[in-house]
């Protein structure tokens, strides 16, 4: 009887062991329970919780247990009464206790996600940015996106492709830019040099060059027999499309080098460098076509095919740009490197300049006769026999055009050489009925204007008695070679270099081979949407100019 009973027990135990060996988790899981509710008290050895059904229970801690708040490891002292908690229990002892505290998961302080990069492409509210870590991202702007340049808020239309930017985001996974700062003048290429490499100091990070020339007026101009320029270790150095380290420069002594140099706190610093591989050829031409698959372009007049590569220095709008900034139809200065029948472009300098920096901007320049000025509800002016600058050429209309002004519109009376108020503009004799007795008795005529507008809103307007001949007006782009001077005979004037004139017949920017002085006495000068005085122009300012011979009429500082 006893033996039978023992056998039965043994068989039962064996079966139990077999079952447990096959399904150990089933037995283990049955011991794990969970509880959740509000924490009442956090003790050293136990925790008291009011469960959601209202029952109050105290659970002791297991010998090993995990404490977390919002998935992060926590200490017992971090838990506070009232917080919601979740518990996992083994044998009714706490093995895992998690509290919940975060109200806004994933929240970051406003603007605390930051990215640095270079704008590769602008398409209205969409920016393609090459980040400093090499990745390329597409970001978006909206009407609330703030843009700062040199500490001042400027419109998004100020942005250029090639600008270096600091982007601020309010959320960790958003592509919408809340704020952005753009590097000011320091982003622009101060000089494009060619020289012979005499010495490369890899510790001081300095290059000494001899036979130094600077790109000026469509060619290389001597600037000195020797110059030492610092470089940044992040500045790329290429030869034949291959990137090389600065340590290798010692093998290229006496080799011709091309340098794009920027201003670094009043000193020159190399931003990009290409070593000449074989022999140099230069072209001032227009890009006929670009083969994006073959990384090559064809020039229109010379019919030359040039390849471009990682090392090609591309300068557009005064900024170092990406190959993608090039387009067919651009007027360029190209330095080619001829080798065994194929030619690589070492430098592509783009002459094209426009009123707008990108397709974000909707700025226009109008010229016309001031027919009427309205105030109060309309605050507008009517132009008749007007023209506007369309792709650098005047397009004339015999109809009327209404433009709107406001208290922020800057109105400049060229004849009186002063800024006038909107009230003076309205009440003054700027637009008159020429057939009226009053006009005849006082010998009054409508004035003529140049208006710089943002859409139909006048940003700045210059009013003058005499009309300029549109045929004589020339559109020119160029760079201020020096700061302006107040000359005793001509008044304020500025020295312009690297200039190109727009040819309406050829529909092309024609590079000039000379520099020239431009007088500023009869001009309105616009910078960042504001009128500035002649003396506020700076050396190396890039200028979009409407001029009558050597007299500037409208200057936009780019």
């Amino acid at each position, binding site marked *: 009887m006893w033996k039978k009973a023992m056998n039965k027990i043994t068989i039962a135990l064996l079966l139990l062991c077999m079952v447990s060996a096959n399904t150990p988790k089933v037995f283990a899981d049955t011991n794990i329970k969970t509880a959740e509710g509000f924490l009442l008290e956090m003790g050293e050895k136990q925790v008291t919780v009011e469960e959601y059904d209202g029952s109050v229970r105290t659970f002791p801690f297991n010998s090993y247990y995990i404490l977390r708040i919002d998935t992060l490891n926590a200490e017992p002292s971090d838990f506070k009464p009232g917080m919601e908690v979740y518990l996992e229990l083994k044998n009714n002892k706490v093995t895992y206790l998690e509290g919940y505290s975060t109200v806004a998961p994933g*929240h970051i302080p406003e603007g605390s996600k930051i990215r640095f990069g270079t704008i590769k492409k602008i398409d209205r509210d969409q920016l393609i940015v090459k980040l400093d*870590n090499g990745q390329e991202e597409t970001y978006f702007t909206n009407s609330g996106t703030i843009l700062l340049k040199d500490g001042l808020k400027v419109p998004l239309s100020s942005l250029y492709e090639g600008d270096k930017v600091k982007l601020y985001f309010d959320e960790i996974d958003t592509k919408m830019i809340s704020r952005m700062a753009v590097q000011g003048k320091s982003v622009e290429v101060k000089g494009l040099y060619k020289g012979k490499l005499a010495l490369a100091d890899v510790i001081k990070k300095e290059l000494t060059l001899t036979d130094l020339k600077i790109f000026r007026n469509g060619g290389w101009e001597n600037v000195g027999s020797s110059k030492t320029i610092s470089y940044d270790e992040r500045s790329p150095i290429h030869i034949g499309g291959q990137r090389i380290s600065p340590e290798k420069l010692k093998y290229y002594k006496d080799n011709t080098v091309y340098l794009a140099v920027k201003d670094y706190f009043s000193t020159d610093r190399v931003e990009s460098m290409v070593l000449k591989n074989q022999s140099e050829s230069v072209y001032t031409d227009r890009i006929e076509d670009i083969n994006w698959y073959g990384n090559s372009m064809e020039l229109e007049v010379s019919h030359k095919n040039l390849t471009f590569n990682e090392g090609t220095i591309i300068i557009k709008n005064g900024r170092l740009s990406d190959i993608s900034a090039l387009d067919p139809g651009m007027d360029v200065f190209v330095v080619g490197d001829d080798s065994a029948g194929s030619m690589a472009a070492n430098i592509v300098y783009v002459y094209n300049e426009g009123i707008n920096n990108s397709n974000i901007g909707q700025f226009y320049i109008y010229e016309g006769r001031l027919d009427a000025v309205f105030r109060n509800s309309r605050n507008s002016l009517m132009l008749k026999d007007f023209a506007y600058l369309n792709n650098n050429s005047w397009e004339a209309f015999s109809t009327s055009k209404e433009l709107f002004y406001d208290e922020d519109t800057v109105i400049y009376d060229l004849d009186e050489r002063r800024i006038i108020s909107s009230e003076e503009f309205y009440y003054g004799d700027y637009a008159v009925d020429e057939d009226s007795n009053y006009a005849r008795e006082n010998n009054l005529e409508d004035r003529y204007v140049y208006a710089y507008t943002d859409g139909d809103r006048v940003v700045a307007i210059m009013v003058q008695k005499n009309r300029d001949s549109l045929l004589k007006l020339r559109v020119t782009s160029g760079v201020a070679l020096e700061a302006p001077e107040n000359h005793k005979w001509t008044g304020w004037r500025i020295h312009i270099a690297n200039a190109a004139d727009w040819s309406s017949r050829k529909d092309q920017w024609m590079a000039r081979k000379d520099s020239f002085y431009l007088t500023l006495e009869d001009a309105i000068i616009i910078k960042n949407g504001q009128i500035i005085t002649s003396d506020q122009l700076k050396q190396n300012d890039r200028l979009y100019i409407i001029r009558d011979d050597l007299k500037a009429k409208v200057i936009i500082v780019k």
Partner: protein
Amino acid sequence: MKKLAWTMIFILLFHSMAWAAPIEFSGGVSDEFQYKEVVFLSGKPVVFVGTVNVKIDEKQEEKKATYTFTLSPEDIDIEGKLTRNVTLITTYTPVTGKGQTIANTKVTRYTENVTIGQDTFKLTNSDIQFFQSDIIDNRPAIDFYSGNIQALKRYEINGGEGIAQVKITGGDVGYKNFWGSTQTQLLDYVYTINRKAQGENENSSWEGTVSVKVSDSTTKSLQYSQNEANFSSFNGGYIQVVKEGMISQYTYNLPRITDEGIDPFGRNQGTISLQASKVPKVERLIVPKFRDTAGHWAQQDIEKLYSLGVFEGNTSFFIPDGSMTRIDFVKAVVKACDIGGNEEADSSSKRSSRKKKGEVEEIIFVDIDSSHPDYQYVKKAFEKNIITRGTDYRFNPNEPLTKAEAVTILIRVLGLEGKAPAPGYKTSFSDDSKIPNWAKDAVYMAAEAGIIGGDNNNNNVNAHKQLKRSEASALLVRFLEFLEKDLQKDYSENIIYYY
């Protein structure tokens, strides 16, 4: 004996480095020979050059900085002279248990005499009010700090002809670590000059503003130098290069002053930039001679770390594709960042003296007792919260290190884990769900800092992956580059260019 030799190399390499800080709060820059700043008291920007004698006496609880300037206009056509004597005392007050220090600075001496043309400007000790307070966040390998400055300088013009008052408001931001330090000051000056009419010039009083951004940086970096001789016992080696440079930018908005006096309608606005750098200091490092790293993708990284004494050993084999152990990585990090500084070397000698007396070190982990050769590194890392211990008190020193563990250690060293978003977020990695909860903040911050990125194929971070010694070396070198270069750029150029 071997240990002593290694310790000596360690001390030799990690010599002390002067912390970078702009000179006083005038926006000037200097190299070894010349100091340069812009002075605006005359209403026009005038660049002054000359010498400054700097004396810094820094103790744990107080720093005394004394500056003596003797300057004259850079333009020899301008007559002028500037002498200035300044003593600033900074008192450090550690905040117990917070790992932070409050630094308050006051002026104990400030005298200045400036002559520009016919005008003299005199400032005595009683003519200045100055308050500066900084908060320093002391993280394991780095001190981050930020502060505010409020000051007022009052000059007597030509012995009673008028008063020139300069209000200064702004602050500073900076960091200090073993690999470098940068301090950038952002200051706004408001000039108010009230003076009696001089002859026909009735409007000789004026107001103007100047914004100054000035940054001083000291950085260490490694540079490879090839051995040009063919039959040498080594191919080349690394040089440690210490560089110090200052950049400054003044943006001014002043009255336009003509021969007729002050033009009531126009302003003179512009920017002046200054730059100065010292001759780099060079120091050769030991030459690595591993036989199994040649041609390996991580050869440079391994050799850099070996040259620095971060990796040690006399064998000819590094075993780059072997597993990095937890203990080796912690030790490398503590050494690479000089955590504890000279305490490390000191503690080594203290340990031996304690042993003589039979004293027992505190047990931190049950599997690393105080006699373990690397105990001091683990202890230091534990004391600085770089590593923590679980309820089992085990460190598992010889277990392979995972990427999540390595990244967590590095981010704790920087003290950046607290800057991660509020919990409950996803990182940008495709395998975000596989990142352990305890490592998520570190992985997020390491990605933000550019220390890690997703793999090329799938943007996975592979947090559970066990790191090879080569991979851990590459990660460590990237981390050191962050300390050397990225921080410097972030605190200097990226502020000055974009502020």
